[in-house]
């Protein structure tokens, strides 16, 4: 037996020896190769750490856009099924996270080897931490109670992972959607501030990576992500919400009135600080929900586009939208997202008249003391160009030409200045060029502005009252601000300050004067002329004045192409206080959904509503006595409003306001451009005796059946340009 034991020992020794040789052989023959394989298996460059995109904040600190840490919930079916008592607690945990556990159970059963399946996206940070805490406490308790392994709930939750990332969040939904823009999933801004300041808002992603040191040991290093910068804007969320409230109210009143569709093709409004170029509010209708910008239902009611993306005269119904092809959806969504105030152009109409007068005054062509005789039309190089009032305005001063918005007088003034001066000043007022406002997708319209050497006399004539050249709203607003503030052209801007993620100021953006457009004297005259538009006996803008305040301004009514369609863009440019303007407001209504579109009351109504709320909010002192009806209107408004985000006036209060606007001052309804002269009223002109059409309330001219405005004599069925055919250059 002793011998056998020795033999056994020798056999074991031999086996150990053989295995030792085997280990040595592996190390000797394959050592280098395997060392490399081991190193190449390691992942060195593994993980990108997301940065947090900066916030967009309004002037008062309200957050307009921010990025939120969220989690994707990942299910690892293989791990979840690795023990039979893992599945139920894990599914229960998913249920607690608000995930349909039945669907997950089906997936896990069908794909038992799947290790990465996203069951939920964008789980909020707070819910994830609450879940983690519950898990931690639960596990500790089970450990303390000594629950048998198989009966544990929290300790047997397996195969659930969380992937962290940021999503963009817009706490106020659609508020200031045109200005803010939105972002796609990969932090690329689209439209508005998000696109223009994309690089500023984005930070630098961090990285966690490994490398081998000189001893071939794997080291890991983390470079933290740098979060993006925040934007502090000049936008005031309260002013913005007031603007959007009344744009929506306008739409609600006029939607589906004449044709199906929105209250107008487009409605835009800009409120701006005259002395700095800061935009306080900018909006258009229709808007969209920034948290759900791809919601195609929002395009319902917009004009149907033709092949050239121009409005076709038809409007999208709900069925159209449902049946829309993917290409068309993209087309209409782009139209919806576009900021009307900076990306669409139109003929400004009579709002351009103060510019024409300023150009003539500034070039010394007129002094402001001239008088012109309006006979209702002017013969220009063989064309008969009509005034708004075909019955003639009579003999009027320069001031009255603005007050009454007389086309004939403006043509005479433009002729006096000459086309060289006229075109030079269009350039000085920056028409056609970008204002360089800090928003994406601003268009330039210089192809639709005349050069002096290509301009004929008829072009000059129509340009003088704002037809046949195209501008954007922001061009008009920025130019007009310089006309009334003493001649300083400020670059309009929205961001006033850029701060780092920790809140320190990175850059202050100060107001920038780009140029001097007109002298202080000319500016003072224009202010006075525009004052008369609101207070003059024949002023066209009376209905724009809010209760308790004095404003200056200019109405505009421009025919759209093709002419003879009786389609108009109506607008009002207003400012206050009159002597030393601070606030400018510009409202444009593109083709209102009404029978007779050529009525500036659609724009002045919005201006009045907005200013009635905005001016007290800004702390502007009231200068005008209040009538009893105005006091009642204001007290009702105060009850319904708290000047806070989200608060909107009760519709009842606004209806009352509308009625009182009509009865107040004896002049019902805004009477765009076409107010008759006092003397003519006394003479009871021929049209005063026309029959009233019971359907529309307008007078009917028995000779041709045309609708005539009962107060101004404006013929709604004819146009100034019936005989003028001027191609757009």
């Amino acid at each position, binding site marked *: *037996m*002793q*011998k*056998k*034991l*020795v033999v*056994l*020992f020798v056999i*074991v*020794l031999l*086996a*150990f020896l053989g*295995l*030792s040789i*085997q*280990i*040595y052989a*592996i*190390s000797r023959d*394959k*050592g280098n*190769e*395997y*060392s490399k*394989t*081991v*190193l190449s*298996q*390691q992942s060195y460059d593994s993980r990108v750490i997301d940065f947090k995109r900066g916030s967009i904040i309004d002037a008062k600190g309200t957050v307009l856009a921010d990025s939120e840490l969220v989690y994707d919930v990942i299910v690892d079916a293989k791990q979840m099924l690795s*023990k*039979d008592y893992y599945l139920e607690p894990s599914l229960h945990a998913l249920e607690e996270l608000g995930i349909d556990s039945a669907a997950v159970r089906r997936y896990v059963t069908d794909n038992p080897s799947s290790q990465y399946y996203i069951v939920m996206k964008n789980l909020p940070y707070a819910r994830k931490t609450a879940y983690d805490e519950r898990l931690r406490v639960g596990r500790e308790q089970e450990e303390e109670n*000594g629950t*048998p*392994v*198989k009966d544990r709930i929290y300790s047997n939750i397996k195969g659930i992972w969380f992937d962290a990332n940021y999503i963009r969040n817009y706490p106020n939904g659609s508020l200031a959607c045109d200005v803010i823009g939105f972002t796609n999933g990969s932090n690329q801004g689209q439209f508005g501030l998000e696109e223009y300041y994309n690089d500023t808002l984005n930070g630098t992603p961090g990285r966690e990576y490994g490398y081998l040191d000189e001893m*071939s*040991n*794997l080291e890991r290093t983390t470079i933290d992500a740098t979060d993006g910068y925040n934007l502090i804007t000049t936008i005031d969320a309260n002013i913005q919400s007031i603007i959007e409230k009344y744009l929506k109210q306008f739409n609600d009143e006029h939607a589906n009135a004449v044709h199906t569709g929105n209250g107008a093709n487009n409605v835009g409004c800009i409120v701006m600080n005259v002395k700095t170029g800061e935009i306080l509010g900018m909006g258009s209708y229709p808007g969209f929900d920034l948290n759900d910008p791809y919601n195609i239902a929002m395009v319902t009611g917009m004009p149907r586009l033709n092949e050239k993306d121009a409005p076709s005269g038809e409007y999208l119904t709900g069925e159209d939208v449902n049946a829309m092809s993917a290409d068309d959806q993209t087309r209409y969504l782009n139209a919806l997202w576009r900021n009307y105030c900076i990306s669409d152009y139109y003929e400004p109409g009579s709002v351009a008249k103060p510019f024409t007068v300023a150009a003539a005054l500034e070039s010394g062509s007129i002094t402001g003391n001239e008088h012109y005789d309006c006979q209702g039309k002017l013969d220009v190089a063989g064309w008969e160009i009509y005034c708004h009032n075909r019955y003639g305005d009579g003999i009027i001063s320069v001031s009255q030409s603005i007050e009454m918005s007389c086309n004939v007088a403006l043509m005479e003034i433009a002729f006096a200045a000459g086309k060289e001066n006229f075109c030079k000043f269009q350039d000085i007022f920056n028409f056609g060029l970008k204002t360089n406002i800090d928003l994406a997708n601003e268009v330039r319209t210089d192809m639709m502005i005349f050069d002096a050497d290509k301009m004929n006399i008829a072009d000059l004539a129509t340009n003088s009252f704002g037809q046949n050249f195209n501008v954007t709203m922001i061009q008009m607003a920025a130019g007009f601000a310089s006309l009334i503030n003493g001649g300083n052209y400020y670059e309009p801007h929205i961001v006033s300050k850029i701060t780092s993620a920790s809140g320190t100021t990175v850059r202050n953006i100060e107001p920038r004067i780009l140029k001097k457009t007109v002298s202080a004297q000319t500016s003072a005259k224009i202010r006075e002329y525009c004052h008369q538009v609101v207070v003059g006996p024949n002023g066209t803008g009376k209905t724009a004045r809010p209760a308790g305040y004095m404003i200056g301004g200019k109405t505009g009514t421009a025919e759209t192409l093709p002419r003879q369609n009786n389609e108009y863009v109506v607008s009002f440019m207003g400012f206050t206080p009159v002597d030393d303007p601070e606030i400018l407001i510009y409202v444009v209504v593109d083709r209102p959904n009404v029978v007779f579109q050529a009525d500036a009351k659609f724009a002045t109504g919005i201006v009045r509503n907005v200013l009635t709320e905005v001016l007290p909010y800004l702390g502007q002192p009231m200068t005008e006595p209040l009538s009893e009806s105005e006091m009642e209107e204001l007290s009702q408004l105060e009850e319904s409003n708290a000047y806070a985000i989200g608060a909107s006036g009760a519709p009842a209060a606004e209806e009352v306001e509308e009625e009182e606007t009509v009865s107040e001052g004896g002049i019902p309804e805004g009477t765009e451009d076409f107010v008759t002269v006092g003397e003519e009223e006394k003479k009871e002109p021929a049209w005063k005796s026309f029959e009233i059409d019971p359907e529309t309330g307008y007078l009917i001219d028995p000779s041709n059946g045309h609708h005539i405005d009962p107060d101004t004599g404006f013929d709604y069925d004819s146009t100034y340009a019936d005989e003028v055919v001027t191609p757009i250059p």
Partner: protein
Amino acid sequence: MPERVLKRSVRVQGAEVFRDYTLIFVVLFLLALGLVMLYSTSSYEAALQFGDSAYYLKKQLFSTVIGLLVMLLVSVLPYRLWGRLATPAFALAVILILAIIPFGVESRGAKRWLYFFGVSFQPAEAAKLATIVVAAAMIERLGSLVKTLRGMILVFLPPVILSFMLYKITRNLSSAMIVMAIVACMVFVSVPDYKRFVLLAVAVAAAGALWIFMTLRSAQAAEDTLNFRGNRILAWLDPQAYADDTAFQTLQSLYAIGSGGLFGKGLGQSMQKLGYIPEAQNDMIFSIICEELGLFGAICIILLFIIMIWRFIFIANNAVDLFGAMLVVGVTGHIAVQVILNLAVVTNTIPNTGVTLPFISYGGTSVLFLLFEVGLVLSVARGIRLKAIDSTQ
């Protein structure tokens, strides 16, 4: 009181008790080294899975402490006691294996565990101990009859039953093989004949070769009908071809051994344990030892096992009776076979089969029963009279 003092002094005078300090030192050293390597190997995965890097260490430490207490107790009990308990021990092993059918818990595709009050337990380990005790008792009772064919069949019968049950019920081929190897060692030592053992070895080798050949044939015929053992054989022959599934663990283990070099990457510096060798703390812990401690560390551990087996052989040689010697031979066979199989798997010398490395791999039941067996050996050693050693040497 005086009586007791007298009694002790008499005993000391009669024959000094033999304590094998070398063996005790080797066992404790291996256990300590095992715990260190277990922590190094398992901490990464434990932290990922359980949020506690010492999860496996704590459990193993607990089993080791219990095991040491058991070892102490068994070493002071007279080992002859176990001869009388051979039949109940065999019955208990059978019952435990049978209990797997209704109460067994499945893990990693195999049903091999029982749970007692939340503590997992592997009946296969109990079966190995029962085999040692039963075979030793049987060999002593048969005396010289062991040499006869009938005697050999009688000795082999209980382990064959256990082995067959382990294979059929728990699908645990490696444990079944180890049980058979243990009893083969014991019979080899007790029978002074070589011819039949050479024949047996040749027969086993031929059967193994035939099996591998058949597996390859059926692999060529239809690849999809192969069971997992067949796949393991194919993966053994050509690990690179099965690098993504069956041979993944083996290949990664070879990478670990090869990349260690002479002195290794240093304790705790293994890269392969970072998810590349799944559950490296079980069967594959030796490859991580090679990676971290190098050839040097690996050879040191093999030397420790050689010293341990040398001590076992020494004790068996000097045991006062056949039963004690056979117990020690059984334990020797158990530990030697398991170490050899484990190293052979890790180096891809034989097809992958789940065998743990004694005293080092993670496994509570395993360390508990191994220390029980060491306790038996120490108990046998206590019976050795120092004078007897002097006289034989």
